[in-house]
């Protein structure tokens, strides 16, 4: 199939960017979206133009490197997948596709479609851990039974890949789904309860400092999340935060 691509080009963080149109022909429906971009880059490269920079790595939907706002939605129109798992059969011959970087002040553009998501890392530095030494001298793994339901819910929260789709989708560029996923994972496990109070206070403080917007419960994040992280996590974080605030 033949497509028109409208791609954000920006040579580096300080320069102004703009949308540039590209035509691409003979795209196979079996290609992944990134295969298609590879093909475009090969063509640009052969014409002596600079290829489009975009983040990607594992190409199987787990590393969270790939991003891209495709036709106004993070990771494109399909659900529960990342851009690398989006296949061209989702589109039709003759379609025009907008391809933009994930936008948020907390995700500044580095080049073209590549953004800096280190704000996510800094939130994790503030409290995304259980303070246990990695010496191996802990209690036996089976010493504390964990209710299966809690363990499964914690796992569901823990599947977050940190791609930033929640921020990109949110009209407020809020990071609450991301932060709440980590807060929830640890809040649900007995091992993590111990420092739950400090964790939620610290992570939320860092989230606010990074300049993400606030949550207005539109639910866009949950719909666009490639791992289907539930809004329940945000509610849980709100509860955790409220009770932590009261403990002071």
């Amino acid at each position: 199939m033949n497509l028109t691509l409208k791609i954000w080009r920006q040579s580096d963080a300080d320069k102004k960017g703009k949308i540039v149109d590209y035509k691409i022909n003979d795209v196979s429906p079996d290609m992944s979206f990134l295969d298609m971009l590879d093909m475009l880059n090969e063509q640009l490269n052969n014409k002596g133009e600079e290829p489009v920079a975009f983040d990607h790595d594992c190409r199987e939907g787990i590393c969270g490197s790939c991003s891209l706002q495709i036709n106004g939605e993070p990771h494109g129109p399909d659900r529960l997948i990342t851009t690398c798992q989006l296949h061209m059969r989702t589109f039709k011959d003759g379609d025009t596709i907008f391809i933009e970087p994930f936008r948020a002040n907390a995700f500044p553009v580095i080049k073209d479609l590549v953004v800096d998501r280190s704000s996510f890392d800094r939130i994790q530095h503030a409290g995304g851990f259980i303070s246990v030494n990695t010496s191996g001298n802990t209690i036996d793994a089976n010493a504390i039974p964990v209710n299966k339901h809690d363990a499964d819910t914690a796992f569901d929260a823990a599947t977050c890949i940190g791609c930033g789709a929640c921020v990109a989708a949110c009209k407020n560029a809020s990071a609450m789904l991301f932060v709440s996923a980590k807060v929830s994972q640890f809040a649900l496990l007995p091992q993590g309860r111990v420092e739950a109070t400090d964790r939620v206070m610290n992570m939320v403080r860092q989230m606010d400092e990074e300049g993400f917007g606030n949550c207005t419960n539109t639910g866009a994040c949950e719909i666009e999340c490639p791992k289907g992280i539930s809004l329940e996590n945000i509610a849980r974080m709100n509860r955790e935060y409220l009770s932590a605030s009261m403990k002071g």
Partner: protein
Amino acid sequence: MATLDSKIPEGSVSEKWTHHKNKINLVNPANKRNIDVIVVGTGLAGGSAAATLAELGYNVKAFCFQDSPRRAHSIAAQGGINAAKNYQGDGDSTYRLFYDTVKGGDYRSREANVYRLAEVSANIIDQCVAQGVPFAREYGGLLDNRSFGGVLVSRTFYAKGQTGQQLLLGAYSAMNRQIGRGKIKMYNRHEMLDLVIVDGKARGIIARNLITGAIERHSAHAVVLGTGGYGNVFFLSTNAMGSNVTAAWKIHKKGAYFANPCYTQIHPTCIPVSGDHQSKLTLMSESLRNDGRIWVPAKLEDAKAIREGKLKPTDLKEEDRDYYLERRYPSFGNLVPRDVASRAAKERCDAGFGVNKTGEAVYLDFAAAIERYGKEQARVKHLDENDAKLVKKLGTEVVANKYGNLFQMYEKIVDQNPYETPMMIYPAVHYTMGGIWVDYNLMTTIEGCYAIGEANFSDHGANRLGASALMQGLADGYFVLPYTIGDYLSKDIRTGKISTDLPEFEAAEKNVRSQIEHLMNSKGSKTVDYFHKRLGKIMWDKVGMARNEKGLNEAITEIAALRDEFYKDVRVPGTENGLNQELEKALRVADFLELGELFAKDALHRNESCGGHFREEYQTEDGEALRDDENFAYVAAWEYKGKPSEAILHKEELQFDNVKLVTRSYK
């Protein structure tokens, strides 16, 4: 020929590690604050090592080429992690895990290392649970296990099909704690491009800041590489696009021996190649073989009809199907080790029984499992187990619960519903057992330079068992390296800060700059991918699942020629001052083009078949691998001498005191 000192401690295999830990030198906590350690790579091995070293008190500088340490490719491991916990009471023990791993590695690994791995495996699980890794649990609240290929016990801990992700996020969280405390300085989007050796000791690295293009000097008292494997030398593999051999190759060129490069694991359950546009293959967890049955049509005409789309797999009657693994290996069936399963698939496809358009795919069928589970559920729920529709519904639910995310992934890629029609799978390059040679302390042949995880060669011999990579990465990073490196660093407490103004840094930086300049100025006519794809094709065709002398000789010549062509005709657009993904690729492919040749050379010299290395000349009458313990029970460690073709072979003879060498049989 120089002999390699593997520094294996004295004593019986079960006591070596304990004795060694008791005897080695420690560094006083106050002195640790004055010692810097560089860790390159932040996967399971690098990430866990960085966290633990920081926790012990060293100043750690950690590097990764990704935008966050959380994205290292360990994250993609699906199935699970082995540990000799014997929670299931099915007879597992440290010894049995040790034995299975040595046997699974086709008797080409170092006993002492493997025993240590089995010994610390149980600690890993304790550690990870304490860190909040949400492993799968049973209703009683205790940890669940499953079985994996090549073994007869259930010792694999898992978190659905995302075990690697959960373990990596555990290590990442441990790192975060130390980054927050300032004990780890994290360098994201940095690629190591050379090692700096001062007075024979590794004292730093040259790294390129991938955003600004700046070439940076970083010094330390020791350098640790946890940079993963080199499967991308095949272009198409299940590795991440960015996975590369560069860091490992650079230290190899500076004096670290490269061991057993030809031992590559071709994983049997990957999604088949769909076309030329593909740049990456997707793995389906080996755990699928617990419930899926692998087959091809028994008749050639049926296979042909299926390929032409005239026949559907579900139309084929039981007797017209060839469950070739169950037929050939009745005792292990579909759960034979990876190398065996992969070769068997290739054998069937080569014989014309392949089932997709290209004839390079076999079926992995869940219909029987769905029926079995469905009946079980019907009985549990007191429903009619003869109601086929109900049984299918219940069975599908069970299968979806176990493998839902994998099935979804398959459907997205292939556009077929695997609950209704059998999955198609084919082997793909997955893991490299070979790597940088290390001694018992995980130190390379360069003093103060360590290699851990997949980047080293030590534990998996010629073939790795499923769920053992995660175990090895974390064992090295959490429990082995942090001890052994102390022994070396204890001699460095008076050294003080290493200056980056030393002439050795100057020279290494110059070397890196000139390579970059050369690539930027080459202004040829072909893209980097063009060369990478050609290299991949040579590797897959001639150094792939089955190798022979003629093909390997051709590969060596062709790769050397391709390398020359690459330097003459490659085109790297853009500039070196800033983000330039083509330049990143070019630097990596340049190293793959050297490694590929050594790889073929190693495969050529090893006149036997073992594990992932299968030489067509060395097989039994019924097509099984024929090992030659008399002549090849050694580690081939290659020393760089200016060109891959001139590499010098050093042998580390393997001693087997605890495991008897027998022909590996899964029949």
